[in-house]
C-alpha cells in the first residue's frame, strides 16, 4: 500500500493506493498536481482563480472550464437535493461572518471587527447555465463559494482516477472517497474522529466504496466581536447555523453527496436532521450533539466494524432510557 500526504484547498490531503507496483507510486504523485489545478480554478481565496473571475462578472455571461462547469453542476444538484440548504450563493454571508480570507490567515487576524448584518442569500435557481456554450451567468449581486461541495467533488474525481490503477482512497481534509474494495477483498477502515477529542475515534467504519464526509463546527470557528462564528452558514438566516449539532458524519454513494447530507443535517439540527438522513435509503449517518450525545441512523450499523456484536449491542442506549 502506498500513501502520499500533501496540502491543498487549505486542508490536509491523503491519497492511498492499495498496490506496491511502480505504476501505483507514479500515479500517486499526480494527485497533488490535480488538486493544484482544481484549486487554481475553484478557490475563492485566489484573485486569479476562475471562480474569482466569475464572481467579478457582474451578471455577464462567462465561458468556463470543464472543471468549473462540473462543480457548478454539482453545486446546483446539492442545492436541489437539500431544498436550498446547501447553496453556492453564500460568499457574501461568509464575509459578513468574518470568513473573508483563508482559515490559516483567519486564525491570526483581528477578531475585534463588528459583526455585519448577513445579506439575504441570492436564489441559486437564478444562476444560468448554458450547456452548449458552457457559459455561466450569475444573477446580479450573487457571488459564489463552493465550499465542501468542491472538496467532495475533488475527492471523488481523484479516487476515480487513481482507481483505474488500483483500489484507491482519497482523504480531502476529512472528506473521504473510496474507489472500490481493497485488493485483499476487505473493506477500507475509516475512523470517525471524536469532535470533543480529536485524538480518539468514536467508531470504526468499514466501507467498500463511495464516500464519507464530516461537517462540523468544532474546528473552523473564530470569534468576532466576542461571539463565536463558524463556516456553516444557514441560508435561511445568512448567519452561521444555530444548531444543537456539533458534527455530522454521513456515508453516501459519493463524497459530494455525503458532504451535502452532513451539512443539511447539521443545519437542520438533531430533531429534523437525523430523520432527514434516515429517510434516504442510500445514506447512513452519525450526529454528535453539543451536549455530548451521539445519535446514529439504523443503517450505520451495517458499516460499523463489529467483531463482537454483543458488545456493539450493549452500547445502544435507546431514546427512552
Amino acid at each position, binding site marked *: 500500500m502506498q500513501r502520499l500526504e500533501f496540502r491543498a484547498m487549505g486542508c490536509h490531503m491523503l491519497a492511498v493506493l492499495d498496490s506496491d507496483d511502480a505504476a501505483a507510486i507514479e500515479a500517486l504523485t499526480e494527485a497533488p498536481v490535480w488538486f493544484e489545478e482544481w484549486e487554481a480554478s475553484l478557490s475563492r481565496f485566489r484573485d486569479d482563480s476562475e471562480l474569482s473571475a466569475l464572481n467579478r462578472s457582474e451578471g455577464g455571461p462567462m465561458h468556463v472550464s470543464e472543471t468549473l462547469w462540473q462543480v457548478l453542476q454539482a453545486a446546483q444538484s446539492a442545492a436541489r437535493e437539500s431544498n436550498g440548504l446547501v447553496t453556492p450563493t453564500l460568499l457574501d454571508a461568509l464575509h459578513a461572518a468574518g470568513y473573508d480570507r483563508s482559515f490559516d490567515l483567519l486564525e491570526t487576524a483581528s477578531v475585534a471587527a463588528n459583526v455585519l448584518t448577513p445579506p439575504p442569500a441570492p436564489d441559486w435557481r437564478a444562476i444560468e447555465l448554458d450547456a452548449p456554450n458552457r457559459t455561466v451567468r450569475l444573477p446580479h449581486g450573487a457571488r459564489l463559494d463552493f465550499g465542501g461541495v468542491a472538496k467532495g467533488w475533488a475527492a471523488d474525481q481523484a479516487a476515480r482516477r487513481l482507481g483505474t490503477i488500483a483500489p484507491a482512497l482519497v482523504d480531502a*481534509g476529512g*472528506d473521504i472517497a473510496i474507489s472500490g474494495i481493497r485488493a485483499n477483498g476487505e473493506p477500507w477502515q475509516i475512523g470517525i474522529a471524536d*469532535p470533543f477529542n480529536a485524538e480518539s*475515534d*468514536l467508531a*470504526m467504519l468499514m466501507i467498500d466504496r463511495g464516500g464519507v464526509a*464530516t461537517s462540523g463546527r468544532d474546528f473552523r470557528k473564530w470569534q468576532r466581536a466576542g461571539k463565536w462564528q463558524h463556516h456553516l452558514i444557514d441560508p435561511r438566516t445568512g448567519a452561521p447555523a444555530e444548531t444543537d449539532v456539533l458534527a455530522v458524519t454521513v456515508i453516501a454513494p459519493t463524497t459530494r453527496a455525503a458532504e451535502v447530507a452532513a451539512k443539511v443535517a447539521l443545519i437542520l439540527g438533531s430533531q429534523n436532521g437525523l430523520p432527514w438522513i*434516515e429517510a434516504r435509503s442510500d445514506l447512513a449517518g452519525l450526529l454528535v450533539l453539543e451536549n455530548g450525545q451521539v445519535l446514529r441512523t439504523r443503517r450505520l450499523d451495517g458499516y460499523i466494524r463489529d467483531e463482537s456484536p454483543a458488545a456493539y449491542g450493549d*452500547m445502544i442506549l435507546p*431514546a427512552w432510557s
Partner: protein
Amino acid sequence: MNHQTQAIKRRPTARKSTTGIKAFMMVASIAMTVGGWGILALGQAQGALAAAQPAIVQPASTINQNGVNTFGSLSPLRQSTQSIARTRSSR
C-alpha cells in the same frame, strides 16, 4: 363439655384464619399475574418505541468514565485496529 364447646369454638376460628390466608394468597397471586402482564406489556411497548425512535449512543469521551453500556467496550477493538484514514470536520 366445656372443653368440647371450646374445641368447637376453636375450629371455626382456625378455619377463618386459613380462609383469610388463602384469600390473601389468591389476591396476591392475581395481582402478581396482572402486574407481570403489565410489566411485559410495558417492556413490549418500550421495545416498540425503541424500534420507532433513532438509537442513541454516547460518545467515547463521556462513556468511558462510567464503563456501562459504553462505546468504551469497543476501545480494545479500536486499539487493535488501525484506520487507514479518519473522517472529521475540514482541517
